[in-house]
């Protein structure tokens, strides 16, 4: 028995060791740095322990706290808007493509997924021009239907939504593929039985398809949430957090504080807070889903 345990440990050790070195150690290091004053330009040995000061500061009333809380709100808004738009759209596209009789379904699937494969740098460059207030095609198209020019990325009221739309455009194809995968898992016999019971159209969708897609939707929502929280490139490439901090999301703000301003301790405290917020949100989503399952 002891020999078996030893061999199990020996077999697990390389994998666990790698996880420890490349995942657990960086996380532990970040947590430790969150309680220190440390310039990222200096060795770890120069970090000095300051207790909860960094956390007090990021939740305080100074510009540090204000900017951090603003970035948290922006990230939450970005995440919610992204999920609210991506999931219904991907279900619609997934249902359309999943219909066997739809001609060109494969082509549509390829086109939708292609947007996910385009590098963000290219997407950001193109969208920054599409959104251009004076020469951008979006405003030109709107003018054809009598809608005046929109400021898009140039106004604090619309910049974040504009970045969300860019994200939706890029991600919806990926989530459509996930939804299609979920739809293929639903046995056709269930639909046949439901039809025999008289279920049609919206009722079939609402009482059969959606409930049976719940696990896929839950997984998609969690992945969409994690992706949304990690948004960085479009902000760094197009808006730099502006105007008036309206697109200053957490990852960009942590980079600005931790790297540009070299305030490694503060940046680590922000990273730890973001991680905790994400863990709590995802756990809450799963707990909610589990409770629904029990019902």
């Amino acid at each position: 028995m002891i020999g078996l345990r030893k061999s199990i440990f020996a077999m697990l050790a390389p994998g666990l060791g790698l996880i420890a070195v490349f995942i657990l150690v960086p996380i532990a290091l970040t947590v430790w740095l969150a309680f220190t004053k440390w310039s990222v330009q200096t060795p770890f040995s120069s970090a000095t322990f300051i207790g909860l000061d960094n956390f007090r500061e990021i939740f305080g009333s100074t510009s540090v706290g204000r900017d951090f809380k603003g970035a948290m709100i922006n990230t939450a808004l970005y995440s919610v808007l992204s999920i609210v738009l991506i999931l219904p759209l991907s279900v619609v596209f997934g249902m359309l493509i999943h219909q066997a009789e739809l001609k060109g379904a494969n082509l549509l699937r390829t086109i939708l997924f292609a947007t996910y494969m385009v590098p963000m740098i290219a997407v950001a460059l193109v969208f920054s021009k599409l959104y251009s207030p004076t020469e951008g095609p979006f405003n030109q198209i709107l003018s054809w239907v009598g809608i005046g020019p929109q400021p898009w990325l140039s106004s604090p009221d619309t910049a974040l939504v504009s970045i969300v739309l860019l994200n939706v455009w890029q991600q919806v194809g990926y989530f459509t593929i996930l939804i299609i995968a979920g739809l293929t898992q639903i046995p056709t016999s269930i639909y046949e039985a439901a039809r025999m019971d008289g279920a049609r159209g919206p009722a079939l969708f609402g009482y059969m398809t959606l409930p049976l897609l719940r696990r896929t939707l839950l997984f998609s929502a969690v992945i969409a949430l994690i992706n949304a929280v990690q948004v960085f490139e479009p902000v760094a490439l197009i808006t730099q957090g502006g105007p008036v901090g309206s697109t200053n999301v957490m990852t960009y703000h942590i980079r600005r504080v931790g790297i540009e301003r070299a305030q490694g301790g503060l940046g680590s405290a922000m990273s730890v807070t973001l991680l905790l917020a994400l863990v709590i949100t995802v756990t809450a989503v799963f707990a909610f889903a589990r409770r629904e399952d029990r019902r």
Partner: protein
Amino acid sequence: MTIRPLMGLFLGSAMAAFSSVAWAEDVTVSFLTHWPPETVAKLEAAAATYAKDHPGVKVEVRAVPFGDLLTTLRSQAGQAGGPTIAGIYDLWLPELARDKLVNAAPDANATDVKTNWPNGVATAASVGGTVYGYPNEIDVYALNYNKKLFEEAGIKEAPKTWDEFVAAAEKLTNKDKGQQGFGMINSWAAGVVHPFASLLASNGGALVVDGKPQLDSENAKETFALYEKLIQSGASVATMGTADANTTGPFLDNFVSGKTGMIIMANWWESALKAGMGDRFADVATAPIPVGPKGDGPHSISYSWMTVVSDGASDAEKKAAWDFLAWFNGPTSGENGASAMGDLLQSMGILPSRTSDVAAFADRLKTPFLSGYVDVLSEARPFPTVLGGQEFTESLQAQIEALQFGKTTAAEAAAAAQADAVSILEKAAQ
């Protein structure tokens, strides 16, 4: 002839002679810059020229966008494989020196800088009296205006006072044409703060005095109020002023396409304006910053850039880097007594700072566009280089942008900017 130019000549020759000594071992020096591709090509050509006399030394150029320069520097400086030489904005020097990321210039190079550059510029390249690099470009702000739009609006000459400035901005505004009188930048920290600081300096004020922020002074409050007035009257439209990570975007587009009558911008934009406007660049004129009610004359903000050497580089790399910089910034590397750095800066419309370069490019600096900048240089105020300077700038940017977009009033912006600045500078000084 005083001893100073003679000493400079001697040092320049000595450094040049020293630089032609062959290196015993192969050394690769990497040079991090934010310059555009065409300028990088010129730097690579200069490095190739240097390599002819220094077969053991290879200078390798690494270019990143301006928005990524500081991040790249912070994350790579001092690391194995990090850049040996980096071009930096002088505002960043105090923190890089505090964290021992930049190498103090060897005595010969430090004397070279102190002898051949104006005192103020050499001081900006130093911390606590220690020289940390070779100053190169100097940038100063001035009022740029579109002469054609001025003519159309019946404005005879550039505004000299704030009253004339507001009146001109209102006359230049034409909502039907989507035309604004004065363009304010947003989403780019220095682009937002430097024009504001120039107007403040021309109203007799300053951002920081003796390490203490002065954003709640009457001079500053009036400057915030000027912004508020321009926004509320519609003479400046905030949504027309967005800049992107490459410092281009709608702000530049609107000026080059004739939808903005006036901007306050630095001389280094000459190449961007020429590229965007072509022949219409002739419509752009330069004038001093309009003077506010408390001002004693036009004063703009100046700042400089410099090249530093990584303290984490090997001794051989540091030696080669300082030698290359001495040659590159010296009077024998360029044309007609100019330095190769001076040639390169001039190709972008940037004012060189080395005394002999200014003399070598005297004719070039007389163009209508650049002469307007050269004229205001002597009265310019250097942007404060203090610990926490980057955070201070970004904090002020946030308040100015909030004012531009009507999210706060001038009085609230001044009070909040001052409170933030006090907190930031005190914390940084600890």
